[in-house]
């Protein structure tokens, strides 16, 4: 017995010491613990339709948790009950009878219906009603053009004339203002590499590709500032490519837009070709 213990004692002790040493090296990490509460999930949804993503997430979580618990339970029962014991023989069963095949088929169909089909049903509604259903026209809809670059977000609002490429376009870098309670349709492209326009609090994400235009929409329901993140590797400063989405309450939107447009027109420089990026809006 002692030889066995000593045979594992030394490498075991070595492993434990290494692990402890590495754990101890985590002390500096404490310096990076932020002030304020830790978060364990996303911020509450701030958009009109983002709640559907949350609902679906939790529905799937409930379904997979139950499934996994059943698997764990079966594993636990078999490990406890079916350990090799003297005099107890395993059951000789190839599982190839018709009964077994029918049972397998039945369980597969049941699992598919319970897990996949129900989830499919929910997501198809979401997709048809919101994700694919991009609002058109200019009635109540705010149009935004996004041009991503290494490593910043260029935004363009059309201003009161709802035309892109005119002097009253509100062009900003890394800061997008949108009105609360109105659909915002975003058309995005990239100057250079593929980026991805991700606003976690609105539960939206869409890649923005060079040489192409991708479309996404959302409707912000709560005023405030939200972060925009890049969600597609775009170079060494990918992690620094943040923007701010400011949702302006409805009573203040017109005033803000008017002032921003006014400033834009006043500072419009016909010779600054780089600042005059814009493309014709195609629904």
């Amino acid at each position, binding site marked *: 017995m002692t030889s066995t213990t000593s045979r*594992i004692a030394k*490498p075991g002790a070595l*492993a434990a010491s290494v*692990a402890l040493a590495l754990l101890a*090296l*985590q002390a500096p*990490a404490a310096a*990076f613990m932020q002030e304020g509460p*830790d978060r364990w*999930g996303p911020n509450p949804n701030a958009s009109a339709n983002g709640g*559907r993503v949350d609902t679906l*997430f939790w529905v*799937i979580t409930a379904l997979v948790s139950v499934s*996994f618990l059943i*698997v764990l339970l*079966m*594993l636990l029962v*078999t*490990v406890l009950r*079916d*350990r*090799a014991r003297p005099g107890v*023989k*395993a*059951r000789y*069963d*190839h*599982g*190839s009878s018709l009964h077994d095949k029918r049972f397998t088929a039945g369980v*597969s169909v049941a*699992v598919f219906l319970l897990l*996949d089909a129900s*989830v*499919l049903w*929910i*997501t198809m509604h979401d*997709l048809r009603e919101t*994700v694919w259903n991009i609002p058109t026209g200019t009635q109540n809809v705010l149009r935004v053009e996004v041009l991503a670059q290494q490593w910043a977000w260029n935004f363009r609002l059309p201003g009161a004339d709802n035309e892109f490429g005119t002097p009253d376009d509100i062009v900003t870098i890394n800061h997008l203002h949108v009105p609360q309670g109105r659909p915002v349709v975003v058309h995005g*492209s990239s*100057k*250079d*590499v*593929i980026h*991805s326009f991700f606003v*976690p609090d609105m539960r939206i*994400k*869409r*890649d923005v*590709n*060079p*040489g*192409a235009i*991708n479309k996404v929409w959302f409707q912000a329901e709560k005023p405030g500032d939200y972060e925009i*993140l*890049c969600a597609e590797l775009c*170079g*060494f400063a*990918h*992690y620094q490519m*943040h923007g701010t989405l400011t949702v302006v309450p409805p009573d203040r939107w017109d005033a803000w837009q008017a002032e921003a447009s006014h400033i834009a027109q006043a500072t419009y420089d016909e010779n600054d070709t780089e600042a005059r990026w814009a493309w014709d809006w195609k629904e």
Partner: protein
Amino acid sequence: MSGDHIHPAPTSFLRKHVFSTDHKVIARQFMWLGLIWLLIGGGMAMIIRWQLANPGLPVPLLGHLLWPRNGGAVPPDSYNTLFTMHGTIMIFLGLTPLLIGAFGNFCIPLMIGARDMIFPTLNMLSFWTVVLGAGVAFASLFVPLGAAEGGWTAYPTLSSTIGTPGSGETMWAIAVFLIGASSIMGGINYITTVIRLRAPGMTYTRLPMTVWGLVLTAALNVLFLPVIGSAMILMVLDRVFGTTFYVPASMTQGGAGDPILYQHLFWLFGHPEVYILILPAWGIVVDLLSFFSRKPAFGYKVTLGALVTVTVLSAVVYGHHMFTTGMTAMLGESFMLLTMIISVPGEILFFNWLHTLWRGSLRLTTPMLFAMGVIFVFGLGGLTGIYLATISTDIFLHDTYFVVGHFHLTMAASSLFGAFAGTYFWFPKLFGRMMSEKLGKLHFWATIIPLTIVFCTMFISGWAGMPRRYYDHTDSAYLRPLQHLNVLTSVAAFVLGAAQLIFAFNFIKSRWWGAKAAMNPWQVGTLEWTLSSPPPHHNFDTIPVVLSGPHEFSHPGLKDRDWLPQTEAAPALPPGAAAPHAAPAGTRA
């Protein structure tokens, strides 16, 4: 080519140990190569986790050596290289040589009753091609403008010369091409060998599932590696000859290409690739669960059908990696539906695994623990695939740590556990010695617990919105409150990394000083266990005649043992015994 005659064993050192055409030697060569590169890739992961938990802090031990000009901390571009090479190395230089190269080479001829692979010289070439590819990949780490940094996915136009100038990315593409070529060579060998060199009586339904897993993998390799090979050719031409296959007309470049074309090519290969990595592990698990439950594998033919179905469907689900690229609704919904459908054969596999264990007589050896571990990790990982197959949730979770957790559980952990299970199981036959059971069990528990913590924490991080491939999450106000999750993940990852040293120690110590192995220490019936440990150069003195299947355990007609070698026919049932669910047709004499 092998036939009934026995070729004399080679005598020179070079022919015996370096340029050997003996599948068993080549298998060991692949094994060492795979294990060494897993260590290197794993080391890179440790550095990545260090940086994420301690942004900007010098990396202990290695930092001042590798990045002296940055005070020993990982610079952002090197960080991008680290996760790029980590992914590339683990997949192409770690898991592929280990699972497919080593076990494919070792197990196939022995398990089918052949003396060697059907094309032994091609076999040797396939190993040395991987070595060449590994050399190019390694060399790429030292070029002036740095190694590849575009992720193992290398999407253009980041991977074009505008996004990533220099030869590092080009060398990466060449390395991937070479390693792919090696796998194709191996695939040709495996398929032809299994079709042509099975011993008399070794029908397709008497093959151990390990062999089936490897054959299906070989088929996918043969068909889909050329797709990524072509994608790499186009990339190299873009980078070196100035073509514009992937480069569109945009503000920074002129071209008539389409970066999304690359994504289609990449994932058309990429999705079958994940099945390439898991099928051998699945096959091994089917066999080992049967062996160590002393029970036939439940539903052999149905399981085989499930594996074949997954193989066939693997190519038509690839679009689920591209839901956020702006594809049409119809295309997206089709890929979503097909992805849901491909989960069904996976569920059947699970069902049959659990049913194999049920009412068995379980021997909880280290190989068995790892085989059961696959059920656990693949169950977790596979179920989280539902979130990603569903477009609505995928849009939020794409490119977050949720995906990282998912693929590490399904692809890395499951394949790796399969490889560990196979290593512990076939070690006696490979090296003639036993690995330490105590250290093996310690390795198992010291691995599965932190592994679960690491990747399940990532599900939380991902749901919280933490993107992947970020050098420093604390740079963002939104992500700073999530930093505690990074610390937790990293701490668990370090424990996980340290635990692998137990395996390394066990492997090396047992290889030269382990207890001598008997001919059939596990008491199982497949053909390799009828030979000495290790087998002679020519494997079988006389080609065996197969009379039963590989999973004939606890047959009621067996008297003083509960296993049956495949060279013996299943005995008659004892008088008066109720006929159990019979063996499938073709397994009885």
